[in-house]
């Protein structure tokens, strides 16, 4: 004796269980770090609970037999499930860099353009002209920067200083700013935006080695990947370093880099440069990305 079952309910239960299993696996194995910002953790756990509750509530419907059921459209759920199994997250590994390098080059020069509203041009003939505009613009925008300052100060009321770099004195050890992952994003943006106040300071942070096509032989980029929301907005940022042992460094190698912040001209813009660099090789950390903690 057979009994007709509600195939649709069975398919739905299978899909719900498969999704929750993948999510649980991602959460427990911490693979979720490669996909989304940690602030989604709670949401994902709640989702897992709801999906399982959905599956349980469907069990009673399995007996509600159905005929001529359209289950074909559920095939679509196979796409993410298969994709997740075939291409497990391995983070940004060495092979991914070939894609992201160009981003780093582009973004590397991007930060200094924030002060001006004109379109960028890398044509060397108008460098000087643009720099003049740059200076004018920065004086004109001084007021504005101040108001921004106030907003930022309002957010962190303990600090009421005009020199942005003093924000990081609390992280100093023996005169070296130790920049951990949790403050890296903020610090990095501050260094680019207020390069003058950081000049001559010493800093130390964990990074990966990247090569740039247009770098000199003794230069490399010590950078990390930054995530705002999810892997879709992942971008690579870094600071140029100068070292004599460039040849000993392999791409994507994890290092702690310690050096003095200087500046130099890159593609027509003044960008930070680390000199007197000390390099210590490191193991890859559990969490390879930097997460913006803005909100």
């Amino acid at each position, binding site marked *: *004796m*057979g*009994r*007709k079952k509600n195939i649709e309910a069975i398919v739905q239960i299978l899909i719900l269980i498969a*999704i929750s299993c993948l*999510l649980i696996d*991602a959460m427990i194995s911490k693979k*979720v770090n490669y*996909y*989304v910002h940690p602030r*989604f953790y709670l949401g*994902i756990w*709640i*989702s897992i609970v*709801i999906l399982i*509750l*959905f599956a349980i*509530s469907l069990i009673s419907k399995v007996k*509600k*037999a159905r*005929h*001529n*059921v*359209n289950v*074909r*459209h559920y*095939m*679509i*759920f196979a796409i*993410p499930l*298969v*994709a*997740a199994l*075939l*291409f497990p*997250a*391995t983070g940004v590994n060495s*092979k*991914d860099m*070939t*894609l992201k390098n160009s*981003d780093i080059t582009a973004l590397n*020069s*991007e930060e200094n353009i*924030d002060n001006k*509203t*004109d379109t*960028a041009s890398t044509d060397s003939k108008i460098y000087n002209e643009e720099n003049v505009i740059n200076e004018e613009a920065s004086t004109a*925008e001084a007021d*504005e920067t101040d108001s921004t300052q106030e*907003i*930022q100060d309002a957010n962190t009321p303990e600090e009421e200083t005009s020199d942005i770099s003093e924000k990081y004195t609390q992280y100093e050890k023996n005169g070296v700013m130790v920049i951990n992952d949790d403050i890296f994003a903020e610090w990095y943006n501050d260094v680019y935006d207020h390069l003058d106040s950081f000049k001559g300071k010493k800093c130390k942070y964990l990074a990966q080695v990247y090569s740039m096509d247009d770098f000199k032989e003794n230069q490399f980029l010590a950078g990390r990947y930054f995530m*705002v*929301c*999810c892997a*879709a*907005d992942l971008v690579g940022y870094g600071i140029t370093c100068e070292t004599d042992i460039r040849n000993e460094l392999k791409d994507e190698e994890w290092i702690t880099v310690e050096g003095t912040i200087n500046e130099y001209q890159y593609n027509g813009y003044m960008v930070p440069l680390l000199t007197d660099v000390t390099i210590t090789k490191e193991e890859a950390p559990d969490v390879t990305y930097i997460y*913006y903690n*803005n*909100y």
Partner: protein
Amino acid sequence: MATYIDIITGFLESGKTTLIKELLENDYLKEFDKILLIICEEGFTEYDDEKLQEMHIKPLTLENESDLEDNLFHLIKDKYHPDYIIVEYNGTWSISEMLRLKIPFDYKFRNIAFVSDAENFRYQLDNMVTVMQPHILNSDIVIFNRFDKFHQGTQKKLSKDIKNINPRTKVTFINDVATDKLLKERFMTFNNPDNTYLNVKTNLKAVFFLVVCLSLLIVLGLPNAYNYTQSIVAVFLSILMQAIPFILLGAFISAGIQIFASTGWIMEKISEGKWYSFAIAAVAGFFMPICDCGMVPIISGLLKKDTPLPQTITFWLSSSAVSPVVIISMLYAFPEQPYLAVVRIISGLCIGIIAGVVLKIIKLETKDVIRGNRRVLNIGKDVLELKNQGAKGKVEAVFAGALVEFFRVAEYVIVGACISSVLQTVMPQTIKSMIGNNILIQFAVMVIAAMLMSTCSTSNAFIGRSFSNNISTVPIVSFIVMGPMLDLKNIVMLSEILKKKFLVMLAMLVIIESAIVFGTLSLFM
């Protein structure tokens, strides 16, 4: 050989008995020797006992729904040894009561045919949707009769109603039972089209084929192909992962909106349709701080509840500009230009309100643009078959509704995320190479980017900022503002409820409005 069971269902006087008689008389079932006819309803047309005997057909009458006992078919097998069973089912009985019965292993439900009187169909669907819907949902074929007065267009509308309930159900308007192609297809064993199994199999094959092709491409193709695909997959999965909590939240809110008729002051005001309601609709998004993919189910929930179209669209377009999370993200993405957050709010509100007013002026209403049959799309309380009453029942209804909504939306999210993850990996480089200094070209590029690079409204400020070395401020702001409005993923999701034509029109409207708004802005900035 399997013993087939065919079920002919439909309301009283819909023509079931006539159909069965004609099937029997027209040699459809001549290959069977021992036919059992189960009659669950005594209609006005009656069977001729003598004639039945002549054709070796044994009738069996079931008086009540409770006669459908679990061992029914077992007893039938022992007593009658039929090689074919045709059931004249009672249209007011639950169809799943019949389908859930235990059947011997060599028995098989072959066809379920829903017979309907075409003239009364729409009236019945309006008034008895909860009784009718399960019958149509389970049927392989819907047979309309008495449609003589109808012209082609009306027939098409009825077919559409059926397709909305179950797209797999075939529809036929019967002139002559003897020659009907569809009936022949379904009721003659040798060309029995019961190929559900086959369909699934071909589909599996197609998926398998795609996977093989893809892996071949990866192995043989570019050395980077695997990693390239992997980064696309990572983006794809990450979009889905961050969307899941919001979709679930949206599904619950949407189900809540549909089940509790009035949803508070804001919704009432929006529904009033007065002019100031646009302003309320525009700022309402501030109180629903969820990202745009979670907004889509809410919008469709509202539309299914028949909220006026102009205000709902205003609410939708503005929601991503006034959300507190979005405002904060703007402040952080552009710390040197905090006024851009204000620009975003104002331009978002403008575009939303103007779009709403335009829709109001051209008198477009919800029922004109909504897809398919709202009665069916709507999750009715009874369709969900509740066990509990009162407050408990309502909670159950929201939960069950959210489940239905989740599966409905998730399909669209997957398709949308799939498209945008591929484009997002390819787009940035393309965009950068397409940019010139001309602000018009920049604007055009940003429109395309806004459509194709579905990024969450909460994070697209940061994406926009990454263009800042190639593109001037105003087009960037236009990208950020238009992003959630034109996002392909959202449009695909909305196409579940809204007609494609309308969505294209809305997208055009948004682009034109943005061109005006940001064109004016660029004069001042």
